[in-house]
């Protein structure tokens, strides 16, 4: 997919992803999992990335830390964290250039950007105590004594409201909610500037979900880190995020402030998504959903990847590759010729 010029540079941009391409090499051919995606996250901003399973959002999250598993390969683009391309980081720290700092990959990970994974139970080492799992990271990065690291761990438990006496527990000895809070505590251990949260509440029941999200909100206001929040639950995200990006089949199809996505969705896919959720308040309306199923990413549909399922656009055999453009201030959409746009929007 073509992108226009790079998104408008802001003063306090923490993360700037430009034209990212990621492939999975399979015996049947390479899967185009991320197809030229660009977006930025500012300081203190909560950016939500939404879409169906397999749309590439989790892939992007893992790629930022370069922990995406084989057989994945990054085939193009840049991931600029505070101006430094993460994709160029290596074993050794590079000398600082243009006043921009440079780290080794090991030093960058967790200290600058950290991540909360989907299942806390699966992301914790089952045979090591929680305290040790925090301590080893703190000792490695900050070069402090284990005692000092342990104090930091206790501090973190206070921040997320877990009883300090549970510090030496094993993961299986904690409840689901406590485990998730422990994992969040771990993610904040080194005071990162960006926290990636990959479906952090999907494995929890609704009440605990609320609880955790409120906690995260509080922490974010307190400590001022940015969040990349990934989920398939759009309704959850709309309340929580400042800006939202909608992904479909490896492409970013719409990006706008949260309220605008909700009140003025432009891309047909976004519109379809919003009508798929029943709302508890307001009038009853028929659930329409989106016909068809996500495409095969080894041979994706040419041009706009959504066109086989789209009910809004002119029925065309193939559509010229859409361009990601700012159709309204702060509101970006993947547009192509002949796409219905609201009045006042640049086509």
């Amino acid at each position, binding site marked *: 997919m073509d992108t226009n010029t790079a998104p408008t540079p802001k003063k306090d941009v923490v993360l700037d992803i430009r034209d990212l391409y990621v492939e999975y090499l399979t015996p049947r051919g390479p899967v185009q999992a991320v197809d030229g995606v660009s977006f930025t996250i500012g300081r203190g901003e909560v950016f939500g990335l939404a879409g169906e399973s397999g749309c590439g959002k989790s892939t992007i999250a893992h790629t930022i830390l370069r922990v995406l598993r084989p057989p994945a390969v990054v085939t193009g683009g840049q991931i600029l964290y505070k101006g430094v391309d993460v994709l160029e980081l290596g074993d050794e720290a590079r000398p600082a250039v243009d006043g921009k700092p440079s780290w080794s990959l090991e030093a960058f*990970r967790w200290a600058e950007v950290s991540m909360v994974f989907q299942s806390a139970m*699966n992301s914790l080492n089952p045979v090591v105590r929680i305290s040790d799992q925090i301590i080893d*990271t703190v000792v490695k990065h900050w070069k402090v004594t284990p005692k000092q690291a342990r104090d930091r761990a206790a501090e973190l438990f206070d921040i997320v409201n877990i009883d300090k006496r549970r510090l030496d527990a094993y993961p299986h000895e904690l409840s689901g909610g406590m485990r998730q809070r422990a994992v969040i505590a771990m993610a904040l251990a080194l005071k990162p500037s960006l926290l990636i949260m990959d479906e952090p509440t999907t494995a929890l029941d609704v009440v605990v979900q609320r609880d955790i999200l409120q906690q995260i909100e509080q922490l974010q206001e307190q400590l001022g880190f940015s969040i990349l929040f990934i989920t398939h639950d759009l309704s959850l995200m709309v309340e929580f995020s400042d800006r939202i990006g909608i992904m479909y089949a490896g492409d970013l199809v719409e990006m706008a402030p949260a309220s605008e996505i909700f009140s003025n969705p432009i891309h047909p896919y976004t519109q379809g998504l919003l009508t798929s959720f029943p709302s508890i308040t307001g009038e009853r309306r028929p659930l329409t959903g989106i016909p068809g199923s996500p495409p095969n990413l080894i041979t994706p549909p040419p041009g706009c990847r959504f066109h086989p399922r789209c009910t809004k656009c002119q029925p065309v055999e193939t559509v010229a590759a859409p361009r990601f453009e700012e159709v309204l201030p702060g509101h970006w959409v993947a547009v192509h010729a002949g796409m219905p746009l609201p009045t006042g929007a640049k086509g």
Partner: protein
Amino acid sequence: MKYVLRRLGFYLIAFWAALTLDFILPRLLPGDPAAAILGPIGSRMTEAQINALRQALGLSDAPLWEQYIQFVTHVFQGDLGVSYSAFPAPVTQVIATGFGWTLLLGLSSLTVSVIVGHLIGIYGAWRRGSAFDVVMPPLFNFIGAFPSFFLALGAVYFLGLQFKWFPIAHAAEDSLTPGLTPEYLLSVLHHLVLPMSVAVLVNLQVWIQTMRNNMISVLAEDYITMSEAKGLTQNRIMFGYAARNAILPSVTGFGIFLGSILGGQVLIEQVFAYPGLGYLLVRAVGARDYPLMGGLFLGITVGVLLINFVVDILYTRVDPRVRAE
């Protein structure tokens, strides 16, 4: 705790099964077991000698279940009968002479092969597709495909007979008197090298394969991804997170391989005339010394069960989830 008790119960059942087997087998021989055992020599034996053998075998005219009770009580009193080929030495005495050697050879070769094998497996899985991984595991698969006694014969031929670096028979120099003298201990070590090396080479592939497969499964887990995301050092991730978890199924599987490894030691002892339980067992078979055979089999089984039990206890130390039971 419950876990340990359960395992102990199982080992007691296994012991009882081996015991019962020892009881049943001689009685399966058609006709009078004593006569069958003595075969053609029997005609030249006196009545008294044949009766002595019958007694040694625990055979009598009492009903079967009565014989069984007597048999079992004797075993728990430490009486396994009298050896026929080493008459009048009791079976337990013969077992005692061999037990130590089997344990020495077995534990030393196990320790070395387990440690080395696991390290190779860990590193091979960590650097999959590297030169190390492409060469080492298949190399030891190749070596392990040879029968152990074949490798032993090769070792005897090249290192023992041709180069004369190591002795080729027995556990220590025959001329030396056994004791804790440095002379004797050195001789023991010298005699241990070849059989131990062969045992290690043959069994290495089992540990390499197991550990490598476990590591590969573990490396696909989310907590490994998270540990990488935490920017920990490669060694910390490889050992503290990956190997620490990969070793668990290895420990439980240990017991299965233990039986075949210690059992297979028989062949190595045979080639090197190393006087352990295996060597004595084969000699007993040759001499048709049935009481001794049964006793040695029981002795080997007890050794295997014992080591299994120790490993089980070790497992509770290593996996905190089991401790919770």
